[in-house]
């Protein structure tokens, strides 16, 4: 009998701390599967963010560095420059990548670092209790926008992927989502493409993943998945940006 599915080698066999229906756990698995399929586990140096995924290294079974909030791409820049033979990726939330780390993000991308970036956009700060993120939708209620985000005072959702796609040195940007099986498969192939780009020396590649945070959206997982599809994709259209 052919084996069609097994636990990824790059994923430790431990129970998860992520909330039910959270996109992080799904994404951790997809990243691990891609790394296994490309057979690069022993070459990987991952850079974890600050945010709910700070302990990504508790789940992944390969070398990993923590980084200060927002600084992942600076850390990854140094690692990749010194160890070009390794495969280096960052895994970052929207607070990490698009707020406190905006400068690091923009400049690592603009330098065209040959790294892979997994950008988890859940439109909110999970770890600190559901505050507004740069990506929070207009009108979305959060702990710090209890009447909904008002562009007059809080500005509009920040479209990092669109911004990065304008940079000459950026080679690949795609926005995907993990709200249903079809899109999960698409997400996996985008992640694979981003890693293959690094392996082939193509350059800076970023995959933005629209991902549910049922806990701080105040929704059960199924409704949260529907909200990704119905609301988030309106503001953040899926597809290849570059």
């Amino acid at each position: 009998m052919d084996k069609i599915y097994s636990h990824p080698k790059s994923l430790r066999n431990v129970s998860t701390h992520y909330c039910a229906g959270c996109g992080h756990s799904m994404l951790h698995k997809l990243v691990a599967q891609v790394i296994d399929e490309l057979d690069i586990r022993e070459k990987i140096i991952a850079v974890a963010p600050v945010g709910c995924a700070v302990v990504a290294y508790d789940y992944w079974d390969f070398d990993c560095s923590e980084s200060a909030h927002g600084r992942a791409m600076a850390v990854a820049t140094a690692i990749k420059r010194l160890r070009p033979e390794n495969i280096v990726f960052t895994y970052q939330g929207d607070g990490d990548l698009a707020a406190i780390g905006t400068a690091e993000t923009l400049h690592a991308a603009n330098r065209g670092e040959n790294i892979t970036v997994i950008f988890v956009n859940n439109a909110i700060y999970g770890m600190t209790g559901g505050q507004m993120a740069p990506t929070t939708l207009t009108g979305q209620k959060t702990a710090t926008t209890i009447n909904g985000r008002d562009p007059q005072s809080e500005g509009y959702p920040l479209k990092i992927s669109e911004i990065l796609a304008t940079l000459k040195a950026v080679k690949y940007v795609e926005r995907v989502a993990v709200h249903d099986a079809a899109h999960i498969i698409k997400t996996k192939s985008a992640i694979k493409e981003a890693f293959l780009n690094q392996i082939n020396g193509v350059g800076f590649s970023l995959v933005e993943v629209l991902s549910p945070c049922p806990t701080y959206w105040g929704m059960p997982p199924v409704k949260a998945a529907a909200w990704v599809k119905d609301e988030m994709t309106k503001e953040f259209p899926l597809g290849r940006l570059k």
Partner: protein
Amino acid sequence: MEDKNNNKILISGNEAIAQGAIDAGCRFYAGYPITPQNELTAYMSEHMKQAGGVFIQAESEISAISMVYGASGCGFRAMTSSSSPGVSLKQEGISYIAAAQLPAVIVNMMRGGPGLGNIAPAQSDYFQATKGGGHGDFHCLVLAPSNVQEAYDLMSDAFDLADKYRNPVIILGDGMLGQVMEPLEAKSEKRKAKKFKKPWALTGCKGRPANVVKSFYMADGALEKFNLILQKKYRSMRQKEQRCAVSFISDAKLIIVAYGSMARIAEGAVNTLREQGKKVGLIRPVTLWPFPEKIFKQLTLKNKRLKFLAVEMSYGQMVEDVRLSVSGKASVEFLGRAGGGIPTEEEIIKKIKKIC
């Protein structure tokens, strides 16, 4: 400018530090321009590649120190440099480096502060360097060279100490040391960079369990346990790494305490006073953390009437460590100026004549 006969070159303090780092095996440098240390960054941009290393002009000091964190985490000797306002920004990364127990060297060529201050030499970041600077209970080893030759020589010590203790090491200089040009005897036979085994480094997990560089400890009691390990390391540094240079201390009635550029002016005052028959000596701390307290204990034990005068380009920062070191067993006076003002030899002599 090279003197073919004795292998001496004329070089600025900033450049000597850069060359000293390269000769010590530093293979990663990231920095962001700020006066008065720009020559260091420029020197690295010119020479790091030739040495087989990586130079990056980062987008900010925060990014530069984070790059150093990444470089060190994957096993390379790494350094950044800046001056006062820039070093304030680096404190986030320095705390993380201390917490992740990574070796790294951070150079601060101090300028006048607080705030934007000015670009004149000062020593006003002593508290920041020696008392933590960033958040959390941690210490950096702090070395204070006082001339160009020593600035060069101390770099290999700095990298060795960083690797030995897996801890950040700060080189605390100032704008004067950075800018002054002096002859430097670069090692004719370059000191071989010591090799330290780094089994913790991120290299890809081939043939071993995965390595993690981190500072996050959520489990009940885990962080306290980790902090106690750090404290043990700091105690060991305190025991083993105190360094200072002394002159005329055996018969001295008054001892000036000064470090870095200030110590050179103080030395002038000591020489002048000695010519006048005054029994004045000098202690120049080379490690500011750990502060060389042992020498003060020894001296105050021997001479109950000994007096000290701390002279600084700040308004009384190192003097606190002098007071702690003599622990009430000697009188400690202070003379300091900052913000572009530098205590002169005459001012020091006048102050000493007032004391005794």
